[in-house]
């Protein structure tokens, strides 16, 4: 261990892995997906859609399996099932008296179970572990291309509708009263959520993707009272933790998705304790006058 510390050089820790093609790819995809999910996470946390994020990310599972079986790009299948699950949740909510969170839980587990069954039935070369836990280190070139396209779409939509979506999260009544189509914004946000879940699936997998969609936003929310700054902080913290997670996973030979999410959680805990205004330690001090 001492030997390791003596020979440890931060530069080579960062640079050495770049000699591998797969590491360059993994770092780029993780950083990109991290940034995209970080951006979206601001809206998810402010709108209170954590559970919805969980639902959509699980519901894409059968879509991925079906797409592979049909030889389609997996993102198309995932998107269809993501949006489909949301539509289904909306439909059941409207037509029954069951509470929304119950319906969300019901629909997403149903979809996820369908995915599991399909994987076991459709004999193909899909590696269940890759879908469930992501495999940024083994990502193929065509998957990289898909991820870049998805990220581009998500970022463009979020950039164009940044303000409208903020207003929609903050005060939908006012948005409607000034003639903004809130129904459209609702479905836009849900579509973007489905797309981001598909992108996130590449790096951390279905099970953990919801962390990418809420943790950076929650962290940033503790650090600032300004929406723009919150967006910026979420994107930065999410990108950095994704990249750092891949490095740690490479050097320590641990599961990549888990490592990325753990770094994000660690940053959140740090903000939770030490945030200048809303940190735990700060608020204890400020009680005394």
């Amino acid at each position, binding site marked *: 261990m001492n030997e390791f510390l003596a020979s440890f050089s931060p530069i080579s820790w960062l640079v050495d892995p770049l000699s591998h093609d797969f590491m360059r790819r993994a770092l780029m995809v993780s950083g990109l997906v991290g940034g995209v999910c970080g951006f979206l996470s601001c809206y998810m946390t402010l709108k209170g859609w954590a559970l919805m994020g969980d639902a959509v990310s699980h519901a894409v599972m059968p879509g991925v399996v079906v797409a592979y079986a049909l030889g389609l790009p997996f993102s198309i299948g995932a998107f269809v099932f993501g949006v489909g699950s949301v539509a289904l949740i909306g439909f059941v909510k409207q037509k029954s008296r069951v509470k929304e969170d119950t319906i969300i839980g019901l629909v997403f587990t149903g979809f996820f179970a369908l995915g599991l069954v399909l994987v076991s039935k459709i004999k193909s070369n899909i590696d269940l572990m890759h879908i469930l836990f992501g495999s940024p280190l083994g990502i193929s070139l065509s998957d990289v291309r898909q991820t870049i396209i998805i990220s581009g779409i998500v970022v463009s939509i979020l950039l164009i509708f940044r303000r409208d979506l903020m207003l929609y999260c903050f005060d939908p*009544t006012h948005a409607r*009263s*000034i003639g*903004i189509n809130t129904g459209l914004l609702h479905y836009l946000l849900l579509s973007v959520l489905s797309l981001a879940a598909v992108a996130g699936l590449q790096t951390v997998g279905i099970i953990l993707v919801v962390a990418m969609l809420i943790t950076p936003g929650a962290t940033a929310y503790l650090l600032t*009272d300004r929406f723009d700054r919150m967006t910026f902080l979420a994107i930065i913290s999410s990108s950095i933790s994704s990249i750092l997670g891949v490095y740690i996973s490479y050097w320590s030979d641990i599961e990549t998705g888990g490592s990325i999410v753990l770094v994000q959680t660690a940053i959140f805990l740090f903000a939770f304790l030490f945030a200048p205004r809303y940190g735990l330690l700060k608020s204890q001090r400020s009680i005394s006058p």
Partner: protein
Amino acid sequence: MDLINDHSIDDFCRIYAEEICVDYNGTVALYDASLQLKSGCICGLVGMNGAGKSTFFKALMGFVRPSRGKIRINGLDVPTAQREQAVAYVPQNEGIDCSFPVSVWEVVMMGRYGSMNLLRVPRESDRKAVWHALERVELIDLRKRPIGALSGGQRKRAFLARAIAQRASVLLLDEPFSGVDVRTEKLMADLFLQFKNEGRTILISTHDLSHVRDFCDLVVLINKTVLAYGETSEVFTPENLTMTFGGMSPDFLSGSTPAIDLNT
């Protein structure tokens, strides 16, 4: 003087509602409610709790769908009027998340969104409108505060400022006076009179009957339907009020005798 989004020839109705009926899953909240307001007037909407005042506002804004009736604002159907920024609405309870990371300035700027381009980039004129609106409600010094760091009354003023910044020709204010201090009450009353002189139309619901006497030109008394409607001096009579509030003595309503004996 503020510019207002005026799309009308002066003598037609700013607010036109004809025989509106609204029910909530079969429970009737409002029936056959009609109202016509011209430009440059303040109209008070008076009725007891549950009389359907908020429902009337929501129907005018298209937030509840009337089962029957016709609504026009500035001669336009409601969605068009909203898109053209003809109408501003301040609900009874904003029902917003007070820990949302936006400042007072940004909240008031939201009143301008409808007049901005797709990306909602503020122009100089938008900034001026926001500044002016904040000055009018005396919140200019608090403009950088997060919205959650305001008191209840200050927050009410911030949302009023947002409606002002919108520069709409029709203002729908659902209980703007609840929970504000005397000074703000005075400030708001002056503001409304000023708006009236600018040719805007203001519909205000209130439980304080002295407001109606002080500055409303017209009054609508409702209890699930319009009971009486017209010039304040003609309609705001003890008999009509007794009818509106279900048989309470007019003396009690006008507040000239002690309302409740606290000692009993």
